[in-house]
Structures are given as C-alpha cells and as structure tokens.
C-alpha cells in the first residue's frame, strides 16, 4: 500500500510540502532572465503539482528493490532509469504547457524562451526524483524497525502469557487427598459429618472452577474461597485452627489475581498450624492505602519444626505471579519473628472488572 496515497491527510501534507519546492522552482527558472517572474510562476505552479504526483511513483521501485538486499548496480540502474523516465515525462509536460501558454497574447514566444531552461529543468527533475527515492527508503526503514519493535513487544507479551499460564492458580491436590481420607474416616463413624464435609469440599471446588482462566477477581470472592477452604480444614484439624480477619470494607471490591491468598493460607496451615500440637492462628489483614492494597497473612509456627520439602514452593509461586502481573508495582515480603510467620503483599488497588 502506498504510504501517502492511501491517506488523505498524508496526501495533503505531502502536497503542502511541495509549495516551497514550487517557489524554489519558480526562482530557479526566473534566475537566468530568459523568462519573466510572472511567466516563471505560471509555469512552476502546475509543473510542481504534476511532478509531485509523478514522484509518488518512486515508492513502487523502492519497494521492489529493498535497499539492504539489492546489489548496488541493481539499485543504481533501477532508480536512474525511473528517474530519467519521470524527468522525461515532466519535461514533456513542461514543453506542452509552454506551447499552450504561448498561444495567448500575454505569453507570446514563451515556448522559444523556455527551451533554454531545459537543462535546468532536467537537472532539477532528476534531483527531485532521487530525493523522493531517498525519502521513501527512510520511510521503509522506519516501518521495518517499527515492525521489528512490534514483533519484540508481541513476543514478550506472549512469553509473559505463557509464564502466567505456567503459574496458573491451582489447588494443591494433597489437600484433596487428605480431605478425602477424612471423609473416608467419617463415613462409618459420623455419616452426617461426612456428608457435611462432602458439601463443603464441593462448595470449595466449585468456587475454584475456572479461576485459572480469570485474571482477576474481587478480594471478597477470594475471601469466601478461603473461608470455604478453612471450613474443610477445620474438620480435618479440629479446633487447632483459628482465623482472624481484619479486612477494610473498601478493600473488598479490589481486584486481585485469583487464588493468590489461598496458597498463603494453605501454607500457614501446612507449614504452621499442622506442626503445632496445640494448634495456632492465622491473621488476614487487608487495607487500602495510597492507591495500593496492602495484605498481610500472618500465622504462628514452630521454628524448630522439621523442614518440609515443598516449603517455599507456594510462596515462590505467589511472588512470581505478582511479579509477572504487576512488575515492580507490587511488593512481596516474608518475615519471621519469634514464632510468627508473616507474608506482606502490596499491589495496585484496581477496582473495575478487567476483561477475563
């Protein structure tokens, strides 16, 4: 597609750029003194318009002979030939115009006097044509680099998407295995409780369905997911789990990546409370400040507990998801103080629903 002809605005700009060229041409033609200033202006204006359009054709040879991939002789011969052709057509047009004008009384003899300007006209024609060729090559190079940039951008977007897919929010299957084992225990001792646990587990799983495909959910939804998760875990661990929630009402509709906090709560149980004979507590804080959502998940743990192999995988995954999604607009910190383990997160408080 021609870069100038296809857009009216560009064409107008292009023709505007030819006005000073027309002035220059008039000046050049009048300089030798063979024709008057008035005759020069009358000739230069239509000739510039004609040549402006003729020079538009330079785009096509430029496109078929890319500057990086064509030999010098090919470039030279192609552009010299087209330049001469364009100039020839232009000179022909000039002669016809001069001849036509000389018919009228006020421009008598113009064709004769104008013929002395021919070498000047040929030189200007070739030069202007070569200039337009240079212009189109610059345009082509710019376009190529813009395309390359867009490709790089697209590649990095694709890479990030792949990364996000790899880090997809997932429910830890061991939670399911342990819960199923608990249900298996309850079926013979307390059928009603077994049924209750099936329902709670079903409720939790339903809430997690399709979350992997969503990029964000309101904090409120994540919180109800966590409550469903904890109600299952409470049957497993009995009174050993205590949850404390301090969540600002205004934080509830902030959009957060799905299953961002659930793994932290699960960590707090698996690496914290499960190791404490007397059990412990989990505290969940969420506050909005300065356009950010600040979340703290804190729990008690046994600093002398046996290290677990999976330890850190959940935390690492959450940190990477935050990083991939928000870059340096999110922070992630882990701190241990005595028998308290604390994860602090801040992320931009976005409210309106994003496209899913």
């Amino acid at each position, binding site marked *: 597609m021609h870069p100038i002809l296809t857009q009216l605005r560009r064409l107008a700009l292009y023709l505007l750029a030819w006005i000073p060229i027309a002035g220059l041409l008039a000046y050049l033609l009048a300089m030798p003194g063979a024709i008057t200033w008035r005759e020069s202006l009358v000739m230069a204006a239509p000739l510039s318009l004609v040549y402006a359009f003729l020079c538009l054709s330079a785009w096509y040879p430029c496109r078929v002979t890319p500057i990086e991939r064509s030999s010098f002789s090919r470039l030279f011969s192609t552009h010299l030939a087209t330049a001469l052709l364009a100039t020839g057509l232009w000179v022909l047009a000039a002669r016809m115009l001069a001849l036509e004008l000389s018919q009228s009384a006020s421009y008598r003899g113009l064709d004769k006097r104008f013929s002395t300007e021919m070498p000047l006209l040929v030189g200007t024609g070739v030069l202007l044509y070569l200039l337009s060729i240079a212009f189109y090559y610059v345009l082509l190079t710019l376009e190529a680099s813009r395309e390359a940039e867009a490709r790089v951008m697209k590649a990095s977007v694709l890479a990030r998407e792949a990364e996000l897919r790899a880090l997809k929010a997932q429910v830890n299957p*061991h939670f399911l*295995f*342990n819960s*199923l*084992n*608990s*249900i*298996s*225990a*309850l079926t*013979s*001792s307390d059928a009603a409780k077994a049924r209750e646990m099936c329902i709670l587990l079903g409720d939790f799983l339903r809430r997690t369905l399709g979350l992997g495909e969503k990029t964000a959910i309101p904090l409120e939804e994540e919180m109800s997911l966590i409550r469903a998760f904890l109600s299952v875990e409470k*049957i*497993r*661990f*009995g009174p050993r789990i205590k949850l404390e929630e301090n969540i600002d009402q205004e934080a509830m509709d902030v959009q957060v990546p799905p299953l961002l906090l659930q793994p932290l709560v699960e960590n707090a149980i*698996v690496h914290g409370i*499960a*190791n*404490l*004979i007397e059990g412990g507590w989990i505290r969940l804080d969420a506050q909005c400040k300065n356009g950010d959502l600040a979340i703290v998940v804190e729990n008690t743990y*046994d600093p*002398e*507990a*046996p*290290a*677990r*192999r999976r330890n850190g995988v959940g935390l690492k995954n959450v940190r990477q998801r935050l990083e991939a999604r928000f870059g340096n607009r999110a922070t992630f910190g882990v701190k241990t103080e005595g028998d308290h383990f604390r994860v602090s997160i801040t992320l931009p408080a976005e409210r309106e629903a994003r496209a899913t």
Partner: protein
Amino acid sequence: MSQPAGRKIQAVIVDDEELARQVLREFLSAHAEIEITAECANGFEAVKTVAERKPDLVFLDIQMPKLDGFEVLELIGNEAAVIFVTAYDNYAIRAFEVHAVDYLLKPISVERFEAALARAKERVGGKTNAGALPAAELAAAARPPQQYADRIPVRDGAKVFIVPVAKLDYAEAQDDYVALASEGKKHLKQQTIASLETILDPTRFLRIHRSYIVNLERVARIEPYGKDSHVAVLANGTQLPVSRAGYARLRAYLDR
C-alpha cells in the same frame, strides 16, 4: 523377632489428624490378631511410645509436628516394622530405602491396607529386617543428594533431642556411635562418622581426622602439635587432633 504363639501383634498408630487415625483404627478392628497399644499425634510422642512399649508394627504419617516420619523411623531404629501413611507420593522411594514395609497413600483403600498388613505380618513373624544397618545410616543414605541436614535428631532412651546443625561444634566417632558436641553437651547417636559426614554440608563441616568432623565456623586456630601433626583449637578452647590428610583438607579449604 518371632512371635510367641497366641501373643497379639502390638501396633501403634502415629498421625496428627484424629480422622486419619480413625480410618486405620477401623481397618485394624477387623483383625483380632492385632492390638492397637497406642496412638500418637506427633513425632516426639511416637518415639517415646515406641521406646517404652516396643510395638511390632507402626503406622507412621510423614508430615507431623516436631519430628517428621523419617526422623521418627531414624530414632526408633529397626525394632518395629513401619508402614508409612501419607497423602504425598513423592517420598515412596525414600521410604523403601529406609526399609519401610510399605507405603500407603491417603485416601487409603482397604485392599492396599490388607496387602501392606500381610507384608508387615511376614516381617514381624520372623523374617527380620535383614542386613540391619543402623536406621540412621539408612536414613542418611536415603537422603536426596545435595540436600544436607539442618538438624540431627538424637534419642536418649525415650527422650528426643534435636541438635540443630548450626549449633553442632564437632562430632567424634566412638565405636558404632558418634558423639555430637553442641552447646557444652554431648549427645550419643548410633551412626558411623562416615555416614554422618554424608549428611553434613561439606562447605560448613570438615573431616579433620578419622574420628573427628569439625564445624569450620568454630575453629579459632590451628596449632602444630608434636613433630608433624596439628591440633585444631575451637572457639571454646576444645582441642581436636588433626590428621595429616585432615590438615591437607583444612589447608585446601583455607586457601580457597
């Protein structure tokens, strides 16, 4: 370890979740020849109970408070047949390397449970734990490569001590045992010094002598001793002999 006729097999269930213990209890109730002598909810309790009651069979969860299942097995030795019970399938190979009888995955099926129990009865009924390397050595050998211990569990009778590796000054070989010197105390553990060496991080611990491994952070200086031997003087004043090979290793470490 053959059973006197008529004596029931003594079993202990170890799991921190009451419901998980309940499943095993229920499955075992179908077997009159087995008696559940105790249930434990954490690793410390498990070691204590096994030391006191000497059961034949232990059902052992892996992830528990205080001590994990592998540490419990390391401390109770080969005296009881052990069946691991866990929701995680990634410990299975390690479980068999420490001579566990079987490895049951939660949720447990009756069929798998029966098969595991049959194997356990075979082991209890005479086919003893052949080979009988100390359990700590099996555990050391089963440790994943490049993953060094950060704590060493030690048992003294029914009591369990945890020696954090960072607080270990040195270890000294004493026949089939190692004495672990930590915070002014010495803890004896049934393990060879060579096996202990494999679980300690070689960038922090060095075998300076056939009978000694030292925590490099504790070494204050090296002094010549006699004609061509040396002693390592620790920060607390303890002097440990350094063999010629040990001195070469120390030099190599210090020159790095």
